[in-house]
């Protein structure tokens, strides 16, 4: 039997945590060289996406366009176009500001990390008729494949650059010591009452209470970086500034 040769599909490369930090720093530095360095939060994500990367942003009713899924954004690599669900636009829905900014950063991250997987070669005829409405990639509210993980991770690094986070943490807490969940439990009732009043409810899930405690600490920085407390909490946990468990030491 003749051997069949098939062209291997391009794959999503593995990226180490430092790769994301370096890529984010590079993006900010490239933007800074063209439009002025960004030294303070919030990161001007609209300007980075539209002015520097020249990606077209469109607001649409994506829930109506893609009724089969909870789609928040979609990217069309060959058109250099991002569609964002209109329910995230901050001028109309101020509470969605953090979500909107993270969504844009997420799609920019796809552009940066994954466009080689989708861009058609100039001399390669399209497999589908031109102008088809099928996006190359969509962001649903819950997606967990490797590309989504990478886009989320890079988005966090772009919106909350490591050195800026460190500087603000030190300014807010007077040291680079982490805050432990155990320490927050001592005033758990007061924190939870404040958070429930602020949010108007409580999320469900195994870690809901722990997350609320940690997000209580993350909230002031989340406001400065204009991200959601959820995104700030994840970033601070990733940088070991918020910790769920105290590691035993030699002497304790």
């Amino acid at each position, binding site marked *: 039997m003749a051997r069949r040769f098939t062209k291997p599909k391009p794959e999503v490369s593995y990226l180490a945590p430092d790769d994301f930090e370096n890529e984010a720093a590079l993006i900010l530095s490239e933007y800074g060289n063209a439009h002025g360095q960004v030294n303070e939060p919030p990161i001007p994500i609209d300007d980075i*996406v*539209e002015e520097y990367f020249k990606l077209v942003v469109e607001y649409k009713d994506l829930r109506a366009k893609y009724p089969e899924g909870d789609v928040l954004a979609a990217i069309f690599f060959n058109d250099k176009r991002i569609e964002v669900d209109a329910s995230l636009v901050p*001028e109309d829905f101020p509470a969605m500001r953090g979500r909107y900014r993270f969504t844009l950063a997420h799609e920019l991250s796809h552009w940066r990390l994954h466009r080689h997987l989708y861009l058609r070669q100039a001399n390669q005829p399209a497999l589908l008729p031109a102008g088809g409405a099928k996006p190359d990639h969509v962001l649903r509210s819950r997606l967990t494949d490797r590309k989504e993980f990478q886009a989320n991770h890079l988005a966090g690094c772009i919106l909350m650059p490591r050195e800026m986070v460190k500087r603000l943490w030190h300014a807010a807490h007077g040291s680079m010591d982490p805050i432990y969940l155990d320490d927050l439990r001592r005033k758990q009732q007061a924190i939870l009452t404040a958070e429930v009043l602020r949010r108007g409810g409580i999320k469900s899930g195994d870690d809901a209470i722990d997350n609320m405690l940690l997000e209580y600490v993350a909230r002031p920085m989340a406001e400065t970086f204009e991200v959601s407390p959820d995104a700030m909490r994840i970033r601070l946990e990733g940088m070991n500034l918020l910790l769920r468990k105290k590691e035993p030491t030699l002497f304790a």
Partner: protein
Amino acid sequence: MSKKAQKRFGQLLREKRMEKGFSLRKFARLVGVSPTYLSQVEQMNVDPPTADRVKRMAELLGESVDAWTSLAGRITEDLPGIIHQEPTEVPDLLRAVRGLTADQLRELRQSAEDMKKKGK
């Protein structure tokens, strides 16, 4: 409003806005409209904005207000006033110049300027 006018205006607006380096939200803020509405205009889902907003857009982008107003299918806000000042003569004049070439219109305009100078 014809679909064609909508399309040309929306396309040109996006092209020039991006060329000048304005993000959608920043430009909407400067014009005084909602970003969602501006995006709908660019996507050609709604009619072009009112004359005063088109004027503001053209000014921000360094484009001709008259050309953009015409492209948007609107008339500039000073024109109704001019017509009302001379309600018979001005419409008559407009009907008379209808069909002239752009060069002929420029020539006429120059004559009008000269007449105004002599009159002063």
